[in-house]
């Protein structure tokens, strides 16, 4: 029989191992951020944000077109993903146990789990193949498709947190159901829904695979939805896998910009919920 002492030693060792796991799991994040800052910060300058990429061989140049392109793609994706996702979330929160609700919930998890490249090639099939050319619109639609399930599920969760008494009070005052849902329930949950929206934006902002065969990238300045458009992730991919040191330098700088955008959105999202939902609602 094992002694009490050895059992406690084993216990202590295993607890120590979980501490080690916590350190090892946070290590990659720290390493990646340190390398990004070390290799990217020196290449960042005002020109990086305001200039266009230079031809191979010339140093300098920036990613102005890619930064604007990414913002346009996020805008198109949000125009598609947010209204549909919030609408679907409202439906799920109100019709919780209908067969449609179960189906939608399951399929939004399925959609969320689909590889982004699969979404990319189906967007190509619908929006690029028939037209015959790549476009920003196709890229935005692919990203919007990825946003829908994310926004749907967080909206539903946030709406379920709203106390039923609020809804009942509004109904008792003679508000019709639709005004209750929009002016009372949706408004109460707005901070949470905004957080969900921010998380979804942060998630798609760095996506590359759905854009490879839709927005495809563009070396020139373009803001047209019908033309191919540049995007930060695409540009980072092209530069990182290219042969020139100058490109590698720009790839690091681009990655630092991209991750900064995403971290700011993620942290903003986290604080938005904490202030509203962290403390118990009276």
């Amino acid at each position, binding site marked *: 029989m094992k002694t009490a002492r050895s059992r406690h030693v084993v216990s202590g060792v295993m607890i120590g191992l979980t*501490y080690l796991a916590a350190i090892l799991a946070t290590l990659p994040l720290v390493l990646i951020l340190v390398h990004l800052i070390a290799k990217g910060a020196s290449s960042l300058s005002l020109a990086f944000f305001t200039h266009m990429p230079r031809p191979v061989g010339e140093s300098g140049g920036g990613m102005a077109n890619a930064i604007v392109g990414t913002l346009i793609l996020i805008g198109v994706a949000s125009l598609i993903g947010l209204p549909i996702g919030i609408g679907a979330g409202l439906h799920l929160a109100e019709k919780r146990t209908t067969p449609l609700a179960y189906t939608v919930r399951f399929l939004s998890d399925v959609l969320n789990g689909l590889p982004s*490249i*699969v979404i990319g090639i189906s967007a190509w099939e619908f929006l690029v193949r028939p037209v015959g050319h790549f476009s920003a619109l196709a890229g935005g639609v692919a990203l919007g*498709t990825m946003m829908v399930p994310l926004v749907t599920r967080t909206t539903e969760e946030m709406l379920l947190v709203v106390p039923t008494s609020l809804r009942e009070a509004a109904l008792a005052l003679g508000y019709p159901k*639709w005004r209750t849902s929009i002016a009372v329930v949706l408004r109460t949950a707005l901070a949470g829904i905004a957080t969900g929206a921010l998380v979804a934006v942060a998630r798609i902002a760095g996506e590359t695979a759905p854009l490879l065969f839709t927005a495809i990238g563009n070396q020139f300045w373009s803001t047209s939805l019908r033309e191919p458009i540049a995007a930060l992730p695409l540009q980072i991919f092209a530069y990182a896998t290219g042969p020139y040191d100058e490109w590698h330098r720009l790839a690091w700088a681009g*990655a630092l910009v991209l991750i900064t955008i995403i971290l700011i959105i993620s942290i903003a999202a986290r604080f938005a919920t904490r202030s509203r939902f962290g403390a118990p609602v009276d």
Partner: protein
Amino acid sequence: MTSLPLDWLQSDRRRLRVDQSAIGDRVYEFLTALCALVVPALVVAIAVAIFAAAWPAFARLGLSIVTTSDWDVRGGHFGAAPALFGTLVSSAVALIIATPLAIGVAIFLSEFSPSWLRQPVGFLVDLLAAIPSVVYGLWGIFVLIPMLRQQVMPFLRDGLHLGATPFFSGPAYGPSMLAAGLILAVMALPYISAVSREVLMAVPRSQREAALALGATRWETIRDAVVPYAKSGIIGGIMLGLGRALGETMAVTMVIGNRPEISASLFAPGYTMASLIANEFSEATNDLHVSALMAVGAVLFVITLIVNAVARWLVWRVSRVRAR
């Protein structure tokens, strides 16, 4: 209290209002239901698009797409077996590395962490999921691969004498199945640990208290009373991480070496289904080539669908027990 005059209740104006709100309700319900219907419609549209586009290749080549390994665009041979092999092996390597770490972190956060550390550590691990794939790839190319080539691979092969096994033999190029597995491990980790943490926290206190009262040590409590209770949820989390790893594209494409060969050695470059599509799709020249790539996409679609469905079912089972 005065009662409302009857004629007021029956006035046209009042009735009009009721009708209006009924119309408003109907419009509102129709619109939200329509939004909800978009979700199934998207899934169906994606499935139909991919399978329809893949059909010519399946009809002409049949299962040879996944069973043969000769990928020759000019000759019309499209055997993606090495890509299927690479997808499965790189994901398996990722899970072998990520699972113990992720469960360790989850146990740490749900049981042992000092309360001031819980939030920040949880946030940092969650942030791993926020880093874009292409940034992982960039880091992989310029930091991980040189490190693997110069230190880790020679150490594993010669230092630990693992070169005698087929899995760690051969020249250390750098871009390899091992590099892909490591990157995928970091990318799958936050998904596994988030789900595990949640199901561990859902285990009732009484479960822990009973074990402690019987004289179990803190570790024995976790091992015998808490983890078994949360087991199927944790497995669900692992499956979710697997789903992520199987479909991951950019980071893998950047570090795996993109060589369509089946090799037992993790040091050898490989290929995955996602990276095959990423590399060849925009340069696909003829219709059969496009269709064959769509067929690879269809296989990937089906595999991830099954893995995710099983994962959701397992997690759902745990949360149902908890609700009861």
